[in-house]
């Protein structure tokens, strides 16, 4: 057992412990229905967090994803309303747009040598503004294909529904795990997070990798936007404000170091599920107010950051 993987084990342990507490209080929490809903309700967050994990491990940050999700919803809704294109064609178009958008931000970060924070902040304004320019109001989507997607699910024993959206999220996490832990690109991402100068000296193509990282994050944000539009059957430019913060929080709770260079994709999935679990618990309890979600997530963030700080010191002294 390496020290590096300790935050991941801590994340899993906390998730299981939290689930156990929930289960003791409300035995229904363990039903496949609750688990199925947990996956479906957090699908868009999980998908975008996969992209965010890659960005954060590379030592960067992507503030634009929440706006990109909202833009995606409006983009899909408006195009479906104005044209007779099949939703799948629109999805392909959208993914191309968001991927290029992400790549452009990556290019600016590399070429201008500016902090990712400010560049993606500009991207956040731009994507949100582009969404507003397409439509100020919520645009409903009524395509037959959307109904098909919403009704696509696998009935688990116990009548829980493993929906298409939940499956897309699990598939994204699996794809992200393979890409991050089993490919050369993934290794380059870790190297970049360890230190840009070192990575360059080791022969990592810094520019190409940076562009690819943000392009991937843009792609995942687009995919998340598709899932969110299926989930809500509408496009609304004011939707998903602050989702980038939830995604960052999920990644950190998942045991990834915000300074970059260390973390696991699987931890992010657990981080997303932990955040979803807190919300589910509040719904089950019924008497707790929704703001406790924010406070508990803040406390969890603090705990993990301090834990990682302690582990880092442990590793240095070892």
């Amino acid at each position, binding site marked *: 057992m390496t020290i590096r993987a300790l935050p991941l084990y801590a994340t899993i342990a906390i998730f299981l412990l939290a689930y156990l507490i929930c289960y003791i209080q409300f035995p229904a929490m363990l039903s496949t229905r609750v688990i199925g809903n947990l996956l479906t309700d957090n699908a868009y967050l999980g998908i975008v967090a996969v992209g965010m994990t890659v960005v954060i491990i590379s*030592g960067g*940050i992507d503030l634009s994803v929440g706006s990109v999700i909202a833009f995606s919803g409006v983009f899909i809704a408006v195009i479906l309303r104005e044209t007779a294109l099949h939703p799948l064609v629109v999805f392909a178009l959208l993914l191309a747009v968001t991927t290029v958008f992400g790549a452009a931000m990556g290019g*600016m970060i590399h*070429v*201008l*040598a*500016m*902090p990712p*924070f*400010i*560049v993606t*902040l*500009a*991207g*956040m*304004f*731009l994507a*949100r*503004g*582009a969404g*507003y*320019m397409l439509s*100020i109001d919520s645009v409903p989507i009524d395509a037959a294909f959307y109904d098909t997607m919403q009704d696509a699910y696998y009935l688990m024993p116990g009548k829980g529904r493993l929906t298409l959206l939940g499956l897309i999220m699990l598939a994204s996490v699996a794809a992200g795990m393979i890409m991050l832990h089993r490919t050369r690109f993934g290794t380059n991402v870790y190297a970049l*997070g360890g*230190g*840009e*100068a070192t990575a360059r000296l080791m022969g990592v193509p810094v520019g190409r990798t940076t562009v690819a990282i943000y392009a991937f994050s843009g792609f995942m944000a687009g995919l998340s936007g598709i899932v969110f539009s299926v989930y809500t059957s509408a496009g609304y*430019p004011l939707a998903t404000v602050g989702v980038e*913060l939830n995604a*960052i*929080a999920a990644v*950190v709770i998942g045991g990834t170091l*915000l*300074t*970059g260079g260390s973390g696991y994709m699987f931890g992010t999935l657990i981080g997303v599920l932990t955040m979803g679990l807190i919300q589910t618990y509040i719904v089950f309890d019924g008497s707790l*107010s*929704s*703001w*406790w*979600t*924010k*406070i508990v*997530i*803040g*406390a969890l*963030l*603090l705990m993990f*950051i*301090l834990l990682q*700080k302690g582990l880092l010191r442990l590793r240095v002294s070892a």
Partner: protein
Amino acid sequence: MTGARVLRRVAPQLLTLGAVILLVSVYFPDFYQIVYANDRLVGIPIDVVKRGAPVALLAIGMTLVIATRGIDLSVGAVMAICGATAAWSIDQGFGLWAALGLAGAAGLVCGLWNGILVAFFGIQPIVATLILMVAGRGVAQLITGGTILTFDNEAFAFLGSGAVFGVPVPTLAWILTGILFGLLVRRTALGLLIESIGINLRASTLTGINSRVLLLAVYMGSGFCAALAGIIATADIRGADANNAGLWLELDAILAVVIGGNSLLGGRFSILASLLGAMIIQTINTGILLAGFPPEFNLVIKAVLVIIILVLQSPRLLPRLGFIRLRRERDEKPSGTPVEAGK
């Protein structure tokens, strides 16, 4: 700094502000009209300096934080907490001064919390302040009980909508706070010390600067500015909205500091330039409305502006272009640092 040097430092910001005002007045020739009515000045420039108050106040504290190579993401949430505290105290009948005191104290405590995480636990500022940014709105909602807490107190509302000698109180607040902080850091060695820990924390600590206490003070200063901004925002609408008070203002404040030509990599700073940056942002916001553009263009125009400013300030492009003499002189010193700080 002497007058000429100050002027040279803020020249790009003054030029930008002038250009923006000129652009707006092309669309809206009545821009410059200021009249004195009902014991107060009325006019669009007055409106700009009044509505820009929260961002300007936040930008003062943010400038100092960024000068230490930090960042404070929590200021918007702190605004909400302090506004909620003030409204709650008024609601409880504690009176004006107790409300102000409690709100200010809440801001200082929030700053202290951030400062301890940064200075004593050595957590990256962006991460440390993220915690309060996420949890802060929850705390504010806890105080207001999830409702928009309204109150009826003329003395407190005066802080948001009143005027002294015709000048709106929010305007006076940011100008006085700016002068106070400016004197504090420039008439003492504080400013120099803040710049030195921003350039090299380790070296500064080794030369005997008490960097921990200084960092604490800087984050507490930022919390205090956020408290003032929160009080004004709350007094203005006569109610505390935990969800929307100061929402995304941390980003505007950071933008104001960046437009003010302060490097996010720490070091030399100018509060005056940041304040001009805040006014540039507000002039753009007001100008877009006046020019008759739909407000949804606001964000796109802002994004384009940020990108232009980024390109102009890029440490990698500047030496190649040899852009403006003014800027090159200023950027000479920190060249080389971006590579190390590229992480």
